């Protein structure tokens, strides 16, 4: 893991959106490096105006036009870390298609236009004293700042990091640096499936007294946690993804159905989310 994955993070303590709280700003690329064969860490110098942000919130990135890639819509990316002191804002992303392909071409000193901070971040409820975080793939990026937040709140944290293979595990050192107990599971080792994780988590509930789940990056893991949570009466939150256009709440592109007092309701991932109550996701 490159040293820069352990950047200092510094999140604002409140989450409520205020007037003119969303900004479109040009940021200079401070560093941009490969974390492994698929993921890149992009660190921007960002103005103070956008650094009042929360773990779980995201920015909407205007990926550049290149000779090879011409993305049109913005691309949503979770905050990987935010350092108000140094004016650093970082994203950890997987090079997937047109937009992230264009992003990957950015060099130190180039300019990237971003809009944010957007959406509702994680909320660690006062009654949650012993959180468990389970992240897979891209979800590791989204959950990383939560580890820091737990450290700030002096909450002991356990983090299960899942990936296809050991070389694709990321942020584990970062989690450890925030004092988290880290458990890694991978497909190649054969311990990342639901059957293996169930007893592991049940064990952690018993041994550590886990009372909250946070997850991101896998529908399968989310369903599993819903089930375990329901059985043990353990609450939690999940960060979701959906194709977006505006990112601000105007277009209704990004809806998903959620459990609601009288049936179901469509909520906007960009606005009411991306972080939702674990049990409300349908």
């Amino acid at each position, binding site marked *: 893991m490159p040293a820069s994955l352990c950047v200092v993070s510094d999140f604002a303590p409140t989450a409520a*959106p*205020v*007037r*003119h*709280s*969303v*900004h*479109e700003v040009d940021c200079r690329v401070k560093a941009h490096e490969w974390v492994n064969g698929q993921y890149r860490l992009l660190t921007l110098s960002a103005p103070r105006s956008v650094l009042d942000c929360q773990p779980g919130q995201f920015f909407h990135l*205007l990926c550049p036009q290149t000779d090879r890639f*011409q*993305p*049109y*819509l*913005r691309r949503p990316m979770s905050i990987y870390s935010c350092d108000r002191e140094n004016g650093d804002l970082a994203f950890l992303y997987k090079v997937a298609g*047109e937009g992230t392909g264009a992003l990957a071409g950015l060099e130190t000193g180039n300019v990237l*236009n971003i*809009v944010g901070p957007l959406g509702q971040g994680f909320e660690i409820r006062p009654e949650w004293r012993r959180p468990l975080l389970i992240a897979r793939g891209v979800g590791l990026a989204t959950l990383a700042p939560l580890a820091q937040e737990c450290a700030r709140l002096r909450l002991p944290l356990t983090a299960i990091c899942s990936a296809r293979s050991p070389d694709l595990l990321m942020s584990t050192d970062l989690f450890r640096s925030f004092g988290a107990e880290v458990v890694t599971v991978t497909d190649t080792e054969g311990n990342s499936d639901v059957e293996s994780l169930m007893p592991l988590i049940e064990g952690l509930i018993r041994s550590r007294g886990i009372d909250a789940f946070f997850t991101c990056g896998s529908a399968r893991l989310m369903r599993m946690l819903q089930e375990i949570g329901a059985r043990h009466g353990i609450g939690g939150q999940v960060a979701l993804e*959906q*194709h*977006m*256009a*505006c*990112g*601000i*709440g*105007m*277009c*209704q*592109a*990004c*809806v*998903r159905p959620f459990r609601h007092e009288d049936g179901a309701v*469509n909520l906007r991932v960009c*606005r009411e989310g991306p972080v939702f109550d674990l049990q409300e996701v349908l």
Partner: protein
Amino acid sequence: MADLTTRIGALTLKNPIMPASGTFSEELAEVFDLDCLGAHVTKTITRGKRAGNPVPRVCEANGAMLNSIGIPSKGADWFLQNTVPFYADYDAPLVISISANTADEFARFAEEVSVPGVAAIEVNISCPNVEDHGKAFAMRPGATGDVIRKMRSATGLPLWAKLSPNTGEVVEVAQAAEAAGADALVTANTMLAMAIDSATGRVRLGNVMGGLSGPALKPITLRMTYQCARAVSIPVIGCGGISTVDDVLEYLIAGARAVQVGTATFISPATMPRLIGELEQELERRGLPSVDALIGSVDIADEAITLAEYA
């Protein structure tokens, strides 16, 4: 300072820049002061509640966006109790976009939303007419005239008919709307389109087909704006692919009295205030006293080189 005001029938807008329906909502107030806009235009609402289309609802294709959002709507009551009061804090006139299944429903709904705080009604006739095999009203002059006529007798508010680029008879539709009493036209809505993921063979929109918007649409809707502005005497509001001040100028020069900005707000949420500033600068740079001086000024003078007929 150049005069940016423009008149759309009985309404005077402080500048010709306003949002396009479905690409604007209260949330944009977090980005800039919405009162800088010429008008506020809401997402289309229906009388009853509707869920909208399946996801994915958007995708992109060659510098354009495709959407099949549909018309998710929380219904008239919710709208009148929440959205209309929100905009009451602003001076900019509120234009509400409505849709319905039949001409009579359009009329009844128009009456219902003719409440204080609403300055004009935009009539989204790109939706299926259940009395014409689901063909959109805006596809035919007859159906368009019918909707506008019935709405005209149901409300005293200005009616803006929003035309569709999918029709083959846009001029006839425009004239039918004018004849039936429309106060203005909006040209235009999105163009029916489709995209397939060639790797998986899967359609990219949950609803299979959806509307094309963004820069790729501009040459088509600019053409419609030009055609309609010449064919009617009510104001025409240009819409389609506007993202730069040059785009705004093109529409005004083609004959639009105002413009609506849609997808560009997704790409850059502060596009509209930027365009207002740039338009003012541009008028001053050109020594023009007002927006009016540009409107319809298109030069179609014959070229210096006329071509030879084959001998």
